[in-house]
């Protein structure tokens, strides 16, 4: 990354500012975090230096968050906006989205929620170089981006999207895309049709947990498929711009992305050097070097103990899980899994993926 992203954090609570400043500064992309305890000062800071992202509370004395948002959205259309509030109020949420915020986030109250929040911010910063989009009147945002963020924050909502006379709906439940309708289409076909719309407006409706699930594939797989279709300019997406922020998987990895819960993929050739393929991984070089070194050391240990070949290695962490397996002929496959995936499922999925990969 050529330069560090700059985040402006606005909250009237000094303790919150300290906490989140530290939290955000420790993100992998190590952004610069400036804090402000008042809306007026935040606006003054925005006038003096460029920021990538503004994270603001809503309830503040003198100038509340919505007032700040109204000003900065107009003056700084490129600035990304996140509301971080302790108040869960649908009206505030709707108003904030209407003002063009990228995300409305309830202040995390558990370590898991903190992690989701950090993932989300990192994701935002990672996409800063994304192509200009234009959906929902927000520059640099595509519908794919929006849905990804809703999935990432494990939202339950119904997205109503309109474009001209067309209307579509996408159902999300706990971050999973469960159904879509667009005209006569429904399910995956409707979802892909909606993603092909270049521009439009959207509305977030209350979640509908009783709505039947018609889309069985993972949200990530579905988004990737759609993004690939957009990039490759095939099918109904031929005239749409590429999916900003979504990296399509290399062809050899594409079938593996569809496995539920997969977060990243990496392959290393049998020799350990040469061309690596990866998907969803930011630091491919470091991870591939570590994975290769680890399998080498563990294989040596296996030889020393006389316990047969190294079948599989798995790691389980707070942020994500991973597993790798090695084939002398094909090399090494490493996969990351979302932390919500149970351990036995990681084991089982990795076996299936590895079998598919080497075949």
């Amino acid at each position: 990354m050529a330069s560090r992203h700059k985040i402006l954090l606005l909250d009237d609570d000094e303790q919150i500012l300290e906490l989140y400043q530290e939290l955000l500064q420790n993100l992998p992309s190590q952004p610069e975090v400036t804090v402000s305890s008042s809306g007026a000062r935040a606006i003054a800071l925005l006038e003096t230096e460029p920021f990538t992202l503004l994270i603001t509370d809503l309830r503040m004395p003198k100038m509340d968050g919505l007032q700040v948002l109204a000003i900065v959205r107009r003056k700084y259309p490129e600035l990304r906006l996140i509301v971080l509030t302790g108040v869960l109020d649908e009206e505030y949420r709707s108003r904030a989205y209407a003002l063009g915020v990228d995300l409305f986030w309830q202040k995390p109250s558990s370590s898991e929620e903190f992690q989701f929040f950090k993932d989300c911010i990192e994701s935002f910063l990672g996409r800063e170089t994304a192509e200009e989009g234009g959906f929902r009147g927000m520059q640099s945002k595509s519908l794919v981006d929006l849905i990804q963020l809703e999935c990432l924050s494990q939202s339950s909502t119904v997205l109503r999207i309109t474009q001209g006379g067309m209307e579509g709906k996408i159902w999300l439940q706990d971050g999973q895309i469960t159904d879509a309708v667009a005209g006569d289409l429904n399910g995956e076909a409707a979802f892909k049709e909606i993603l092909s719309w270049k521009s439009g407006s959207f509305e977030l409706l209350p979640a509908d947990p009783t709505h039947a699930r018609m889309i069985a594939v993972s949200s990530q797989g579905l988004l990737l498929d759609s993004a690939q279709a957009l990039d490759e300019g095939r099918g109904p997406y031929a005239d749409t711009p590429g999916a900003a922020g979504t990296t399509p998987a290399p062809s050899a990895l594409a079938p593996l992305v569809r496995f539920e819960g997969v977060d990243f993929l990496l392959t290393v050739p049998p020799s350990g050097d040469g061309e690596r393929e990866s998907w969803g991984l930011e630091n491919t070089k470091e991870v591939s070097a570590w994975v290769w070194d680890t399998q080498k050391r563990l294989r040596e240990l296996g030889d020393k103990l006389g316990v047969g070949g190294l079948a599989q290695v798995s790691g389980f962490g707070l942020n994500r899980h991973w597993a790798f397996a090695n084939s002398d002929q094909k090399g090494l496959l490493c996969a990351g899994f979302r932390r919500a995936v149970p351990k036995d499922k990681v084991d089982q999925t990795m076996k299936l993926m590895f079998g598919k990969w080497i075949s």
Partner: protein
Amino acid sequence: MDLVRTDRTVKPEVKRLPTGSFTVDARGEVISSTVSQVFPEALVRDIGQRIVHVFDGARRAQLPFSELVVQYASYKIVAREMRGGAIIFLSPKPVRMVSSS
């Protein structure tokens, strides 16, 4: 004539695999262990150091984790990172018997 038949041929020793658990510090040095003393201390220390190295490397690669499961064809190592070290469990994997009926 010997009353008891003795077999004087030397049979090859069947290698046993270390089983049990042990804890190591951040450098992989063994702190406590339930692994039988039959197994060379150096071997147990080697396992510990390799495991600690895996945890360290993962952190540097920004892929931190707290539990490691290493599965060999006939052996399993499970390691959990602890403050300032790790606890490591060693166990042979049960052989799956396939019966025909």
